[in-house]
């Protein structure tokens, strides 16, 4: 105990002073709709900017800001300029929880866009009381089908196809293109991976060996990867003469670690690698040290055009915007996806009308969202009862340059649902891009 009176007084005084300072620094009372003023709209995003996932996703907020700046330079949304507040959650659920809470409480954003990660966003949604505060949670950057549950996530709108859908398409692709080959699933050990596992089960796909659950943590020791490769070698030994299909359902750093381990062990060409869309960005894999000879031939699935395909009008437009508004950042699939989501966001804000409210933007997506223009080669599924964005995939194959071309040379789009529905070939035709990439919808 502080016996000395003056010391005690000093501590007490300093405590009161600091407390008072913090209380008094409360911001002035907010407008009726948080994040919206006559001249601006404030949006927020919590995503990995640093850390292992930051390597691939770190570009997303910057790319979205670039598109928003382009729109702001062209009149904004009914005269309001869009600002995006970006916070780093390092792909860690607890940080996502605190940063998202900060976005709502401190930054007073109107809506969240592009929240990233399954485990991260699930925790963040609850911690930041998004349901209670009715904060729109737009175009989340994850395929976890749980987010379509409107009871648990009443304000969430997906954009990526669910992982369950992807698994079903992969299952069909394996059945159609690699009949008779043994197959194994290596999935990330969290809700993301589990979603994929469920999808394969729903598709009725039987793997030849038990699923390998790859622990998600911040350590990836060589021993762990080597153990996985050893078990894969066991698969080869059990079925000589085959070329097993290995499905990798994890983020890029996980995919890269495994591909590198396989290359180090010299067995990379003994398997057909099927990389789930989340982990298949060729540029990132190359940056993480995977050899281009290993990447050559990796099969994957996508629902967007390839970022290197300049014949696609959307891609070309986004590349232009990137050059002008996002200097020094190389355009890749992540930038493409980010700008695409930004374009969807602008259309949603416009569709809500000049009197912008949280309720308004959400019902706008429900009623008009399915018709929004976007770069996606598959349809959007928004409706009064569905929060699903894209609902399909096309099968791609990477070459040594890291380009993703349609598998077998012809683009075939599959659509399906997250449940037991069949996988069907789609005849979807993409809406024309608005002139100069500036939406004029209402």
């Amino acid at each position, binding site marked *: 105990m502080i016996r000395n009176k003056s010391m005690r007084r000093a501590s007490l005084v300093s405590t009161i002073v600091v407390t008072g300072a913090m209380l008094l620094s409360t911001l002035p009372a907010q407008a009726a709709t948080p994040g919206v003023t006559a001249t601006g709209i404030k949006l927020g995003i919590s995503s990995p900017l*640093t850390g292992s996932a930051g390597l691939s996703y*770190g570009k997303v907020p910057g790319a979205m800001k670039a598109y928003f700046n382009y729109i702001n330079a062209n009149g904004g949304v009914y005269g309001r300029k869009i600002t995006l507040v970006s916070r780093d959650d390092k792909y860690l659920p607890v940080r996502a929880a605190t940063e998202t809470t900060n976005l709502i409480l401190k930054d007073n954003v109107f809506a969240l866009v592009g929240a990233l990660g399954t485990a991260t966003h699930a925790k963040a949604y609850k911690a930041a009381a998004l349901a209670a505060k009715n904060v729109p949670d737009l175009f989340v950057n994850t395929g976890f089908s749980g987010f379509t549950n409107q009871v648990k996530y009443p304000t969430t709108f997906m954009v990526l196809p669910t992982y369950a859908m992807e698994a079903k398409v992969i299952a069909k692709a394996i059945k159609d293109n690699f009949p008779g080959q043994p197959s194994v699933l290596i999935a990330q050990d969290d809700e993301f991976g589990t979603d994929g596992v469920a999808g394969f089960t729903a598709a009725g796909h039987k793997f030849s060996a038990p699923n390998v659950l790859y622990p998600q943590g911040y*350590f990836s020791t060589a*021993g762990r990867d080597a*153990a996985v490769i050893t078990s894969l070698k066991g698969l080869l030994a059990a079925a000589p003469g085959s070329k097993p299909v290995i499905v990798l359902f994890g983020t890029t750093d996980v995919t890269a670690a495994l591909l590198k381990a396989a290359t180090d062990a010299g067995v990379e060409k003994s398997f057909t690698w099927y990389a789930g869309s989340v982990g298949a960005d060729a540029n990132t894999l190359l940056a993480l*040290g995977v050899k281009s000879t290993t990447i050559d031939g990796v099969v994957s699935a996508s629902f967007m055009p390839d970022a290197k395909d300049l014949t696609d009008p959307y891609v070309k437009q986004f590349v232009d915007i990137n050059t002008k508004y996002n200097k020094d950042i190389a355009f890749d699939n992540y930038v493409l996806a980010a700008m695409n989501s930004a374009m969807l966001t602008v259309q949603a804000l416009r569709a809500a009308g000049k009197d912008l409210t949280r309720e308004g933007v959400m019902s706008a997506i429900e009623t008009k969202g399915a018709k929004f223009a976007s770069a996606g080669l598959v349809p959007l599924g928004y409706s009064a009862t569905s929060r699903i964005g894209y609902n399909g995939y096309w099968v791609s194959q990477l070459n040594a340059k890291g380009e993703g071309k349609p598998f077998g040379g012809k683009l075939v789009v599959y659509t399906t649902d997250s449940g037991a529905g069949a996988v069907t070939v789609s005849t979807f035709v993409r809406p024309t891009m608005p002139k100069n990439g500036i939406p004029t919808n209402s």
Partner: protein
Amino acid sequence: MSEFITAVLTSLSSGAIYALMSIALVLVWRSTRVINFAQAGQAVLTTYIGYDIVQKTGSYWIALAGAVISGAVIGAVIDRFFMRPIFKRVNSGPIVMIAPVAATLGLLGIIQALIGFKWGLTNQSIEAPVSTNGIKVLGSAIAFSKFNLLVLVFVSVAVLLLTLLFQRTNIGLALRASAYSPEIARLSGIKVDTVRTLGWAIAGASSGLAGMLYIPGAFLYPNAMDLLLVFGFIAAVIGGLESLFGAVAGAMVLAFAINFATTYISPKLFFPTAFIVLVLVLLVRPAGLFAAKMSRKA
């Protein structure tokens, strides 16, 4: 059998790196009676300097030399301008127990923050100068690469040089004397303060080498060497915090324990093994497995 050989070889190569860190900690402990938690910061800082050199010159070897030299300089500067003034000021009251730990911890935090300021927080990497693929023995690759071999060679040379320094030179004698008994050393004309700074310099060089040998197999970010600090500390404690030999031997014991546990029992035992080994040693032979004296209460 090949699993056994692999485990032995990987133990040797990780043990070699732990040894460098452990040596650094023991050197500082013996000269200043402080566990230098900031050693992790020094190691990672010098590695970032090495990274910059690689970016500019493309040569790993120049970077290695640069890291070691800057490690020595930084170590000396820290002792002379940070530790010494603090110890002069803080020399009474219960804070004396906390001060060294708080000081080195605070220094660690500051170094890591400064690295964040200058280099940012994204993971960087340094390419190894030789192959990191498993060497092919009898057709199949083992988990030991040319780079692992390089690490072993370098550390062995370093330990040899240090041993020669300590046992065969006057400076080495002065270092040992100052550590053993500063008053008597001073009386016999040894500039104890200078010698102590020299100890910090050598420690800095050692941790600089450790960083450059460790990072090519991992990512470089401000906290990249924290783990190595913990393992270096555990290795030093196992070895007795007394001697070069103890530091190296302790590192090997730790590395073997960890590698064999993760290979034969479960890969998940990576950290728990280290902690268990530490606790066992502290309970059974608190002075360390290789120590002569029995005291370890500071």
